[in-house]
């Protein structure tokens, strides 16, 4: 494998700026890597070699002309298939959108293009981002580069796996209840969910509108910060986008310093249900943080234990409405019910949604329809919205006392493909630590804490900060990263098994 693909985005940006390498070379190296390993990993649903190389050549030409370019200009990126890309098939992992070519670009894609990042392709995901394993993709599962018979997390398993497998230095993920952070944790990568409203949702195929947020998936904190700066910022096309300056995340990542930082360990986000190896690595990380001058305090957030239940009411409720548009009338799949001659629009809608949606999507649509239906609204959706307030109040109280909160990102390391596919509750438990921040709109960052002793698979530590204080996660994350990398003698991913090239 070309050593270009092992480089961080920041390193590649420097090489490109210095003229030591061209964007076409860098992009081609990653396309070659995809060609070599993606049959095994299946991180990509679409690869747009032509488009990526066109952008690369354009960036090289502009650089040759001496134009001033964005920091990451020419560094290729993979984009989760939930993000709408003009002219590139976008399916959101669903049969119901098979072959759909969007006529417009998501705002974050516009920003990637404006910054000159070649888009390698679209990454695999659980259908409509419903899942924690990428097994619910209508196009087959993605595999974890650390162990091909394990899940890469979800819903953004394609993005995390593509970065972990060196198929891309950068990827875009989206996080509704943990879909960036959890896949990063189980693949030994970095994943960041910005503050809700920090990055535009315009052009993200909505799962739960009040929770969805796009963010970086990378192999270093600095890379995440650089990408964060490209995609974040106010967008007048998204009413929920925050009209304020982007927090100084790159400065924070570059000036990591833990002295005087107060770090809260959330009592409710550890203990029962958390794998021993995951907790061990978490405790090691806390020791390192203390040694570097941080002050660790225990903080209780009593309503976090209701986070998962709240999440699994609000999400299906919003999703049941967001997914109503997939009805075979204007775009996407259209299935005629067999047996009915001259079927009605209603019959065609029902037949198409039956055939076009997978089991988990149907399960959540029915659940959400129930939670919103008359007679149950108050008990379910109504109550969930109140608990959401309580969880937010827990955060506010906690951030009175500490600068950031930390917890293991996920209770376990990557599990085997198929282990939880038809056990929804077991699958939902993967999100137990990530959903509280989603419900409160707080930013969250996951970085590798090491390998669990029992299975040698990556575990992750999650750093949470107050809304629009995203820079704090980068400051603490970058410091911890350098301490850990020193301890490991190199990035954790260096310990991942070599993927053998199938081509």
């Amino acid at each position, binding site marked *: 494998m070309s050593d270009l693909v092992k480089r961080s985005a920041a390193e590649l940006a420097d090489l490109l700026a210095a003229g030591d390498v061209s964007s076409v070379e860098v992009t081609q190296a990653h396309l070659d890597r995809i060609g070599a390993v993606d049959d095994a990993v299946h991180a990509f649903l679409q690869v747009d070699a032509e488009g990526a190389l066109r952008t690369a050549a354009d960036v090289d030409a502009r650089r040759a002309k001496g134009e001033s370019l964005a920091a990451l200009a020419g560094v290729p990126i993979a984009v989760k298939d939930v993000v709408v890309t003009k002219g590139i098939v976008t399916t959101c992992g669903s049969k119901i959108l098979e072959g759909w070519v969007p006529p417009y670009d998501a705002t974050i894609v516009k920003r990637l293009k404006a910054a000159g990042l070649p888009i390698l392709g679209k990454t695999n995901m659980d259908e409509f981002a419903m899942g924690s394993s990428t097994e619910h993709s209508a196009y087959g599962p993605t595999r974890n580069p650390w162990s091909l018979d394990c899940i890469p997390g979800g819903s953004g398993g394609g993005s995390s796996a593509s970065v972990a497998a060196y198929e891309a230095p950068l990827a875009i993920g989206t996080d509704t209840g943990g879909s960036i952070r959890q896949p990063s944790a189980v693949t030994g990568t970095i994943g960041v969910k910005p503050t809700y409203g920090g990055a535009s949702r315009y052009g993200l195929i*909505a799962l739960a509108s009040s929770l969805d947020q796009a963010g970086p998936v990378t192999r270093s904190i600095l890379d995440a910060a650089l990408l964060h700066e490209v995609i974040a910022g106010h967008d*007048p096309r998204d009413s929920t986008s925050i009209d304020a300056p982007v927090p100084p995340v790159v400065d924070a990542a570059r000036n990591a310093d833990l002295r005087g930082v107060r770090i809260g360990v959330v009592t409710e986000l550890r203990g029962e249900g958390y794998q021993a190896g995951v907790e061990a690595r978490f405790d090691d990380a806390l020791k390192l943080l203390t040694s570097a001058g941080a002050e660790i305090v225990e903080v209780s957030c009593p309503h976090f234990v209701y986070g998962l239940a709240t999440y699994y009411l609000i999400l299906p409720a919003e999703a049941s409405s967001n997914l109503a548009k997939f009805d075979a009338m204007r775009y996407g799949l259209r299935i005629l019910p067999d047996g009915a001659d001259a079927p009605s629009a209603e019959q065609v809608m029902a037949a198409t949604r039956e055939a076009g949606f997978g089991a988990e999507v149907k399960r959540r649509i029915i659940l959400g329809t129930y939670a919103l239906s008359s007679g149950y609204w108050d008990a379910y959706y109504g109550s969930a919205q109140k608990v959401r307030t309580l969880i937010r109040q827990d955060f506010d109280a906690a951030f009175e006392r500490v600068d950031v909160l930390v917890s293991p990102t996920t209770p376990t390391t990557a599990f085997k493909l198929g282990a939880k596919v038809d056990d929804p509750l077991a699958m939902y438990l993967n999100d137990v630590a990530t959903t509280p921040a989603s419900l409160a709109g707080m930013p969250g960052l996951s970085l590798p804490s090491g390998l669990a002793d029992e299975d040698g698979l990556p575990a992750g530590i999650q750093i949470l900060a107050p809304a629009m204080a995203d820079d704090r996660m980068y400051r603490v994350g970058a410091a911890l990263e350098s301490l850990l990398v020193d301890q490991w003698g190199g990035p954790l991913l260096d310990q991942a098994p070599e993927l053998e090239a199938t081509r």
Partner: protein
Amino acid sequence: MTTATLVSYDDAIAQFDPVLGLEVHVELNTASKMFCGCSTEFGAPPNSQVCPVCLGLPGALPVANERAIESAIRIGLALNCSIAEWCRFARKNYFYPDMPKNFQTSQYDEPIAYDGWTEVEVDGETYRIDIERAHMEEDTGKSLHVGGATGRIHGAVGSLLDYNRAGVPLIEIVTKPIEGTGAKAPEVARAYVTHLRELMAALGVSDVRMEQGSLRCDANVSLRPHGRQEYGLRTETKNVNSLRSVERALRHEICRQATLLGGGDRVTQETRHWHEDTDVTTPGRSKEQAEDYRYFPEPDLVPVAPSREWVEELRATLPEPPAQRRARLQEVWGFSDLEMRDAVGAGALPLIEATVGAGAAPQTARKWWLGELARRAKTEEIALEELAITPAQVAEVQALVDAGRLNDKLARDVIDGVFAGEGSPEEVAKARGLEVVSDDAALGAAVDQAIADNPDVADKIRAGKTAAAGALIGVVMKQLRGQADAARVRELILERLS
């Protein structure tokens, strides 16, 4: 049930009191749609005013149109409503192909305006209408049904959808139950819709073209025996889209329900459709099988919290209330009650006002708009304001008449020219050579010729039968292609024959 088998309206009213509830949808005349930048221009080619937002494409997001919010508040204020300090949009979830997202972005339990009232007049009597709420929502696309019985939904083998109207801002104005109007119920309803149309026009928030669907009425009605307090089961009659239909549909529905109740049957609570052509209503979706709309706050839009300062600024922009305005104009113009009612009924007030403003006398302005021009609008089946002539041009025509340069016939010819786009009345008169001939030389010659050609008539006049002069005047007029000054011709004839 055919109209023939229904009890008469008088019999219906003799037994029952109608209770009305009116839902009026007003399409706002904003330049762009409620939640996206697409144009709201009427009559564009199909699907030429759409974008990812109003087509409900995956990933698209709404952003509220500030002018629509402003119009909603002004409408609320004009209807004496309270304006919410804080309210949200809500999703009304149901599947229907003309609605791209399969939910309508509307308002549920937090309307922007609520608890208002207004007054309408029928035959000199004033009725107070209490307003329940006025809320913001979006219009749907338009479907064209093909294959089956034309235009009808039932039997159609398919539909063709145009989303140009999808997302156009709507304000839905809902009344509280309207009771105690008795036999006048249909007229009160009509008066109310007429009143709203006038009010929206005065506010300048809507084109209020019922024929284009920018003002639509759903009419709820139930009957209860005289003296009974509790309401009967109601029906909601939809697509009642002309003032005439509001009245006729309610009359029909009252008779239909009275017939059912009188025959010991129950009224089914349902939605019914009004058929302008056949003057009947037919059942639609019945409420038993109605959808559960699963309303919830729209997470893609943030709350609307109009500052009290803004609300007061908008209150200051409200126009004079229609009733007050009518009284004032009638006073200034010296119209009789009947003349005023006709002018209002024809929606001609603004036109007459503008024509008077351009210098015409109120009565002449009224005569033009309710006479000749009303006739032309009728034959062309368009609204008065759609005629290809401006109030200023009407005033100009009248000025030419007053100056003796045109007579009534020539004035009508000039108007033809204006309609034909030949320019201003002055230009048309010049170009077509339309000018009353009044110089004695030309007239004298024509008169002498007429006398010579009609000696017997001339003799009658000489014999003192001056009434016969009319015959000779006609001959002269004919000869001068109607352009003669009739009065002067008469004088010349009498001079010569007495």
